[in-house]
Each structure stands twice: as structure tokens, then as C-alpha cells.
């Protein structure tokens, strides 16, 4: 029976005799009615009356016909095809409408999809770990280092006494570069992690195994896990990689496993090789004495149903207890317990950027949808008569709604397909201009998930703008020839235009604020010369693993010797001016190169009691550093070449630091003690302030210590070179490169202009500004098109009225006023709503802004003006054509 049913279905589906089936059905029904008529006639009723009664008895032939038809399987396919054909014919007749709708949708959907695929990883997509929602980053936070870190002593005590976590494990603070000895040595990133690290994350190697606990101890067997990427690029996915000995930084280690393809460190740092962290359990004792303990990064997996807040509350007493054991009382205040979700740790402030971008792109989509809905409504009004005719002919409401929805779906699907292509293009642009500080951006791509999102968007927007024009019942009034376009959807359309203006106002305000802030950031005075300044960073391979001063390279030279030879070689180059050394470049520098203000003890003064006096940036430089960067020495002489040979220690203070340490005094010749070992520096100069807190942060006081020509001054922090030149960077780079290669053939060198470096720092704000600006302009143009559409629609509707007015003596200026007045009212209302919403919403941007308030009146005023000018221009076009109305023509068209 099932088979039979199936066969019948198939027959119905493929017989392709729909037309004849329908004819059969009609004939069958006609036969019925005629039999009925005959029966009445046989009763002696007149033929005409008999037919009337028979039809009444039957009740709705069309209805029955449709009901019978709908019993056939696949009948709906026929009607869908019909609707599709009908819609396509309509689109062909009205190409401008069709193209406008598709382009608008493609823009909205494309931009949204591209942004979604970028922010998806930042905001929504689960992390590639089992129980990813339960993984937290745990540690101490302190003013020097905002990212939580862990210290040896803390780690053991917490791990052994904690209750809220299932597992806790740590990795080293970050990857270090290491060299894999192959036929061509390759520079890799190596990191160490505990044996419990991968199990805590819920990661299993795809090949081999994790470290064993007995391998994760000092002087244990040398083993390593390698990433899938390294396995692929260096070993061609060869399964015999297991148990193979590879040589990393000169010592052999056994590969015990390969990490999964999608593996990433919780810190998102790049690493190719993972080695056991091999913590010394006795570390605990050592840290008690030393006071600091081995720094590392710790992560933990919460027990099920334990929240982060709970975990924090439970860990707080333990934190306080451990702190009392390890941290000196006077600095305790500066340490805090930090537990946060891994997602927060990974994305930090980017989450706000992501939400802002997603919000603005959704606003653009909303504007696009409103525009399309508005277009559909305008078309709906024009087609009202057609719909009314079809309705009168017996088409059901459902049928008409289905027709409109089919049209909307077709348009949105084509729009979505075009949008998908656009998204792909936009994504390529995003990635090309991507700053490295936006995590995951480089990995963003269109996949099933984002494509699904696009389809969903298309469906939702399809329903949204398909339903609005279909919702109202076609009125029979529309059948009358005298029908004029009434404002039946007018209120909705006007409302949408007002909404569009308001939304684009908000977008524009946000973009303008970011733009102003970015400009201020770009043009701020850095206090250093960036033009014509070049920077070079040299990694010395022989002494890389333990860059301790005085360590001897293969050639028997110390680091100092090599660096000084490099300096001399670069100095000899023609066109090169001052050559100096530093350990970082302004603006910026990093916390590794900072000290607490309280560490500075002026000899002869009582030590500062301020424990949280903030940070002081420390840079180890040579005398020419100031000349190369054109930093003026405002007091004293600064460092001299002679002092490099001295056994004494010298220091130059920034103006800010000098005024804090020596208020109203002359600092030259004074001595400053640093650290607990009693080393003191003599102050030999005061340098002008330099922006060294990064582009967007507060200025940080700075102290320069002189790198002398002794081995211990050339270790950590590893020096970087800075020099000024009148020649083009493209000319100088190869020279410098070859000079250094001559001295150390294996040393990797990075040469960059300082301009490039500074410009990289502004990558993020530039990216945010460009994106938001793009969305704002897209939104604005769509809103303006919408306003234009509505104004011209209203103007056409009033053609007759205008004709009458002109016939009665109204001049062109009156007509202009009439039309512009209409548009201006919408504009004013939209702008008013937009401004008030902007005032509330731009507040969210506060942390992204530099040197400008989120309610900067000048910016908001300029934006309002821009919007007003553009929008008024859009209403002038229909106004102009209304002014050219020929009164006779207008009156005749009635």
C-alpha cells in the first residue's frame, strides 16, 4: 500500500499533465452542476432559476475547485512556480526598482555578514576547548601588568588548596623565539606548559600523547609537542614524526605528540613547540626567600555550576593568605586577585569595538530594510488596483500575501547572494587593513555559520518588507477608476524615513567622533622626530636562550662587542647621522621597561612614601639616542661619549620626572638610588617630555640610564638601534642589513622607519574609524535616498494640488516651499531624535576616544549640519520637478 501510494504520488508529480488535470476537474464540476440544474428543471423549475439554485446549492465553484486541487500532492509547487514567474515578469517590467532593491539589500546584508564574520569569534563563537565556558584565566593583577599573571609561590598554594576549580594549570609567560636545527635553521616560537595544561583545556593530541607528569619536572627527559602547522610545513604530516629527535636551540628533544589543527594557546600567542614547564616544586621555598617567584600564566576550569563571582569569593581568602606570605606589606595594596573568563582575557577592550561595529552595521541593515520596505510600499500603492482586481476575482488573502512574500523572498535571496559576494570582498579589505591588535581578525572568513547568518538575515528582511505592503486588505475602492493614491501607508513610510535619518545621525556622530579623535591622535606632539628616523632590531642567535649580559657568542665575543661593532659599522655609512641605542621606542615601551615611582630614592632625601606613585618608564640608551630622535636636553648636558667608558652610572630624567623628584630644585649632579643593592645614578641632564605611554595613554615620567661600554649593560633589556638619516629608507635598509650580516650572518634583523612603527600604533583606531565611517556613509546615503524617495512620492501625489495652486497664482517659490517644507519636517524630527539618541549612545564610545568628549558639541553640530545639507539637497530634486509642473497638464491628468 505504501508503494502504491508512493507510485501515485510520483505519477502526480511527474505526469506533467497539470493543465489537462485542471480541465478534467472543471469538466467534472460542470457536469455536477448541470446534473443539479437538470434535477431542478425536471421538478418543473424554469431553466434560469434552476441554474441559480444549483449554483447556490453548490456554493463557491472556485473554492471547491481550489480545495479539490489542493488535495493533489505538490500542488503548491505549481502555485509557487506561478508566483515566481509572475514576480520575475514584474521585476523585468520595472528594472530600476529591482536593481535598487537588490543593491540596497546587498549592501546591508553584505556589510552585516562581513562584520559578523569578524566579530563572531570575538563575541559569540565558542572557544576551541572542551567546556570552553568554564575556562578562566586566574592570577594576580597589578598596576604594572593588567593581564593577570601568576607567581610560583602562589600557584602551588592555590592549586593545592582551592575548591572552585576542577583543574588548574599554567604555562610560561609567553613564547620565546627558538631555533629548530634543520638543513636550513628555522626560527620558531617555543613555549612551556605543565603536563596538566592540555587536559585542563580538554585538548587531546591528534597524534601521540601529552607529556607525562614524570616528564614535567626539572632535568626530566627532553620531550616536546609540536603544532599541526609545524608538522605539516616541516614534516609533511609524516606519522613517523613520533619519537623523532628534533634539535631545538642546540639540544635534542623527542617529539611525543602533535597538537590538533585548531589548537591555539589560551593567550592566543603564536607557538610552534610546547615543552614541559618543569617547575621546581622547591620553587615554593625559593620564592619565599626571593619574594617574587617564577612568573607564569595560569588557567583553570571551573567546576560545573560554579560562577566566576563565586570562584572569586572562594579564592579571596586564599589570595589574602598567600599574599601575606609572599608580598611585602607595603606593596600588597597594589596586588589584586583576578579571575575572568577566557573570552574576556582574549578579547579585552576589543569586545566594545566589536559591539559597536555590529551595532552600527545592524543599523545600516535596518536602514536598508526600511528603504526596501518603503520601495515595496510605493510599488504596492501603484499595484493596489491590480491586487484589488485579483481579490475581486476570487484570489484569497493568503494567496495575495503569498505572492507578495514570494516577491520579497526572491529579492532578498538575490540580494543575499550579491551580499555574500560583497561580504567576501569586504572581508578581504578588512583583513588587508587589519591591525594585529584585533584578535582573530586574520582568521575571519565566510563559512557555513556566517553564510547561515546571511540566509537568516535575508529571510528576516524578506518577511519584514514583504509583509508590510501585504498586510492591508485590498480595498474595493481601489477598483474605481477615480482612485487616487491615498496616504494609506504614508504614516508608516514617513515614520521609517524619520527613523532612518535618526539612525544615520547616530552612525555619523559616532564615526565623526572617532575620526576627530583619530586626527588628534595622529597629529599630537610626540616629542620626538619620526621623519627620517630608522630603527633596527637584531637578534643574536648564539646568545638567544639566556640573554644574560656577558654571555659569549660562538666567535668568543660578548653581546656588547657585537652590538658596538654594529654601531660602528652603521656610523660609517654615508648619509647616516646619529646612531643611538635604546631598549624600546617612544611612543610606548611596555611594562617590562618600567619601574614603580617609589623605587626611585633621591640620595639625601627621605624615600618617597607614595607606594602607588605610578610608573616610570626606564630606557637604557647611549648619548646619541637624544640626537637621533631630536629630543631636546633642557637642562645639563645629557650623556657624553666619554661617560660610556666610565665605571660610574649616569641618568637623564624627563622633565616630568625631574619636577616630581626635585620640585623647585636643580637635579643636575644629584644622585638617585635604584633597587635594594644600593646602586646609585648621577643625574646629568633633563630631557624634554616625550609621549611614551603609547599614543592614547597618559604621559608617563621617564628615566634614561646610560648604557656604558661594559658587558653587563648590554644584556636585558636587549638593545635596539635607532639612527637618523637623510637618505630614503629603501636605500639605507639594505646597507644596514649587509653590514650586520657581515658581522653576524645568522642574525635575523628587523629594520623599520619610526614612522611605520608609530603608524602601527594607530592601526586599531584607524581601523575602527575607517569601518565606522564606511558604515555611517553607507547608512547616510541610504537614508538620503529614502528621504528623496518619500519626498518625490509625496510630490507626485500632489501634482494635481500643485497644478491647482499654480493655476490660482502660486509662484514657483511657493511650490518650492511647499515641497521642501514636507522634507524639512521629516528631517527636523529625525535629526532631533538622532541627536538625543547620539548624546546617549556616543557615551559608549568614551573609552575609544582620545582627547575628545563623547558629546563634543562641535562634532555633533558639524554632523547635524552635514546631514541637513545633504538631506535638503535630496528634497530639492523633487521640489524642482514639482516647480516645473505645467498647471494645465496637471489638471488634465485627472
Amino acid at each position, binding site marked *: *500500500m505504501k508503494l*502504491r*501510494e508512493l*507510485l*501515485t*504520488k510520483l505519477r*502526480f508529480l511527474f505526469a506533467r499533465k497539470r493543465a489537462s488535470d485542471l480541465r*478534467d*476537474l472543471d*469538466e*467534472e*464540476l460542470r*457536469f*455536477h452542476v*448541470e*446534473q*443539479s440544474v*437538470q*434535477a*431542478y428543471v425536471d*421538478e418543473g423549475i424554469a431553466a434560469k432559476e434552476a441554474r441559480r439554485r444549483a449554483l447556490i*446549492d*453548490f*456554493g*463557491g465553484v472556485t*473554492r*471547491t*475547485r481550489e*480545495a*479539490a*486541487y*489542493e*488535495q*493533489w*500532492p505538490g500542488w503548491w509547487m505549481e502555485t509557487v512556480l506561478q508566483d515566481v514567474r509572475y514576480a520575475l515578469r514584474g521585476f523585468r517590467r520595472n528594472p530600476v526598482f529591482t536593481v535598487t532593491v537588490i543593491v540596497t539589500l546587498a549592501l546591508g546584508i553584505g556589510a552585516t555578514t562581513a562584520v559578523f564574520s569578524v566579530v563572531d569569534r570575538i563575541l559569540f563563537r565558542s572557544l576551541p576547548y572542551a567546556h570552553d565556558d568554564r575556562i578562566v584565566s586566574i592570577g594576580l593583577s597589578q598596576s604594572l601588568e593588567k593581564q593577570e599573571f601568576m607567581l610560583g609561590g602562589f600557584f602551588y598554594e592555590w592549586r593545592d588548596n582551592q575548591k572552585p576549580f576542577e583543574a588548574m594549570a599554567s604555562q610560561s609567560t609567553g613564547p620565546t623565539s627558538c631555533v629548530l636545527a634543520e638543513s636550513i635553521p628555522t626560527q620558531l616560537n617555543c613555549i612551556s606548559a605543565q603536563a596538566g595544561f592540555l587536559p585542563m583545556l580538554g585538548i587531546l593530541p591528534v597524534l601521540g600523547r601529552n607529556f607525562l607528569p614524570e616528564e614535567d619536572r626539572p632535568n626530566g627527559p627532553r620531550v616536546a609537542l609540536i603544532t599541526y602547522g609545524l608538522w605539516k610545513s616541516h614534516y609533511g604530516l609524516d606519522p613517523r614524526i613520533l619519537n623523532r629527535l628534533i634539535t631545538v636551540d642546540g639540544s635534542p628533544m623527542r617529539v611525543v605528540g602533535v597538537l590538533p589543527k585548531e589548537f591555539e594557546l589560551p593567550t592566543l600567542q603564536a607557538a610552534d613547540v610546547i615543552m614541559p614547564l618543569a617547575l621546581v616544586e622547591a620553587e615554593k621555598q625559593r620564592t619565599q626567600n626571593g619574594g617574587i617567584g617564577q612568573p607564569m600564566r595560569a588557567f583553570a576550569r571551573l567546576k560545573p555550576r560554579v560562577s566566576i563571582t563565586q570562584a572569586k569569593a572562594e579564592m579571596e581568602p586564599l589570595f589574602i593568605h598567600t599574599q601575606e606570605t609572599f608580598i611585602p606589606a607595603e606593596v600588597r595594596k597594589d596586588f589584586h586577585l583576578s579571575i575572568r573568563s577566557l573570552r574576556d582575557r582574549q578579547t579585552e577592550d576589543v569586545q566594545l569595538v566589536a559591539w559597536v561595529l555590529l551595532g552600527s552595521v545592524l543599523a545600516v541593515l535596518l536602514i536598508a530594510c526600511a528603504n526596501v520596505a518603503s520601495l515595496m510600499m510605493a510599488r504596492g500603492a501603484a499595484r493596489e488596483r491590480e491586487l484589488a482586481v485579483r481579490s475581486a476575482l476570487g484570489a484569497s488573502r493568503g494567496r495575495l500575501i503569498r505572492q507578495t512574500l514570494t516577491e520579497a523572498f526572491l529579492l532578498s535571496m538575490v540580494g543575499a547572494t550579491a551580499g555574500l559576494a560583497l561580504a567576501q570582498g569586504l572581508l578581504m579589505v578588512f583583513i588587508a587593513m587589519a591591525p594585529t591588535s584585533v584578535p582573530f581578525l586574520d582568521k575571519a572568513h565566510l563559512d557555513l555559520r556566517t553564510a547561515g547568518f546571511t540566509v537568516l538575515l535575508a529571510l528576516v528582511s524578506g518577511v519584514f518588507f514583504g509583509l508590510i505592503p501585504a498586510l492591508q486588505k485590498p480595498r474595493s475602492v481601489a477598483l474605481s477608476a477615480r482612485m487616487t493614491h491615498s496616504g494609506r501607508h504614508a504614516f508608516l513610510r514617513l515614520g521609517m524615513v524619520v527613523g532612518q535619518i535618526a539612525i544615520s545621525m547616530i552612525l555619523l556622530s559616532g564615526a565623526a567622533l572617532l575620526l576627530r579623535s583619530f586626527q588628534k591622535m595622529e597629529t599630537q606632539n610626540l616629542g620626538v622626530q619620526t621623519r627620517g628616523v630608522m630603527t633596527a632590531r637584531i637578534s643574536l642567535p648564539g646568545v638567544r636562550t639566556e640573554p644574560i649580559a656577558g654571555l659569549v657568542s660562538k666567535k668568543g665575543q660578548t653581546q656588547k662587542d657585537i652590538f658596538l661593532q654594529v654601531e660602528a659599522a652603521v656610523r660609517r655609512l654615508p648619509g647616516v647621522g646619529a646612531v643611538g641605542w635604546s631598549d624600546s621606542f617612544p611612543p610606548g615601551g611596555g611594562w617590562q621597561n618600567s619601574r614603580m615611582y617609589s623605587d626611585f630614592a633621591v640620595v639625601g632625601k627621605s624615600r618617597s612614601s607614595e607606594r602607588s606613585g605610578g610608573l616610570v618608564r626606564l630606557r637604557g640608551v647611549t648619548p646619541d639616542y637624544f640626537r637621533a630622535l631630536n629630543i631636546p636636553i633642557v637642562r645639563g648636558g645629557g650623556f657624553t661619549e666619554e661617560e660610556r667608558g666610565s665605571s660610574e652610572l649616569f641618568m637623564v630624567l624627563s622633565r616630568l620626572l625631574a619636577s616630581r623628584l626635585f620640585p623647585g630644585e636643580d637635579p643636575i649632579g644629584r644622585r638617585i638610588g635604584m633597587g635594594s643593592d644600593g646602586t646609585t645614578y648621577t643625574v646629568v641632564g633633563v630631557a624634554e617630555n616625550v609621549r611614551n605611554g603609547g599614543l592614547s595613554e597618559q604621559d608617563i615620567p621617564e628615566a634614561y640610564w646610560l648604557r656604558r661600554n661594559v658587558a653587563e649593560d648590554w644584556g636585558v633589556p636587549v638593545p635596539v638601534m635607532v639612527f637618523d638619516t637623510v637618505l630614503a629608507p629603501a636605500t639605507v635598509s639594505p646597507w644596514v642589513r649587509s653590514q650586520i650580516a657581515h658581522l653576524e650572518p645568522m642574525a635575523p634583523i628587523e629594520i623599520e622607519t619610526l614612522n611605520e612603527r608609530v603608524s602601527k600604533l594607530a592601526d586599531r583606531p584607524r581601523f575602527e574609524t575607517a569601518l565606522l565611517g564606511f558604515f555611517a556613509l553607507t547608512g547616510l546615503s541610504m537614508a538620503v535616498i529614502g528621504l528623496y524617495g518619500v519626498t518625490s512620492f509625496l510630490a507626485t501625489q500632489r501634482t494635481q494640488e500643485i497644478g491647482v495652486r499654480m493655476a490660482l497664482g502660486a509662484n514657483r517659490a511657493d511650490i518650492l516651499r511647499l515641497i521642501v517644507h514636507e522634507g524639512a519636517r521629516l528631517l527636523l524630527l529625525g535629526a532631533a531624535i538622532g541627536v538625543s539618541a547620539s548624546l546617549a549612545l556616543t557615551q559608549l564610545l568614551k573609552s575609544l576616544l582620545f582627547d575628545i568628549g563623547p558629546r563634543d558639541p562641535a562634532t555633533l553640530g558639524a554632523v547635524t549640519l552635514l546631514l541637513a545639507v545633504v538631506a535638503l539637497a535630496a528634497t530639492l530634486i523633487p521640489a524642482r520637478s514639482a516647480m516645473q509642473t505645467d498647471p494645465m497638464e496637471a489638471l488634465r491628468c485627472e
Partner: protein
Amino acid sequence: MPRSVQPPAPSSSDLLQGTLDLLILKTLALEPMHGWGVALRIQQVSKDALQIGQGSLYPALHRLEYRGWIVSEWASSENNRRAKFYSLTAVGRKQLDTELANWDRMAEAIALVLGRREATL
């Protein structure tokens, strides 16, 4: 078909769900018939108590045909008009038996509930 004086008959929508199908199958079990014939026959046999709304007759016929319980063919009617005749298939006959058995069970059950009959067990 005389219908001048007629008590308001229950329309097919008042019929028990599925009863119309059963009635059609039972009617066609006697001989192949066209739609008009089916309606007439049911009305006559039920002594005008059941008047099949034509609006639901044809959808039902098409539904049954699609299920494979009846088949149709064009033939000449009594008055030599072309009409579509429906006849029961073997599957349809089996279905009729099933539905009749169901009907009996149901009728008995309802009778029991209404207390019109003693339990036969």
C-alpha cells in the same frame, strides 16, 4: 432531486471526522459512480438525513484517489454525457473493511458509554 420541503440536514462538516470518506467508499463499493451520483446516492439511502455538501465532496474524492483507494476514468453517463466515474480499488476495498470495523468498534463504544447496551463481555 426534490428538496423543496426538507428538514435542515446535517451538513458534511457536522459529520464525524473521516465519516465522509467512509460513506464515499461504501457507496462506491456497490458500483462505479460519478460525483453527482455519489452525492445523490448518499442522500437517498440516508433518506435525506445526510446531504453531502458538494464543496467537500470533490476534495474528498480527489484525496481518496490520490491515496490510491479509488481510481477514476471518463465514461458516458446515463444521459450520455461525459462524466468521470470513480471505482474502488483492491486497496480501497481493504480500507473500507478496516474503516467499517473501526466504525463498529466506535459505535459500540459510544453505545456503551451512553448506556444503550450492556457490555457483551
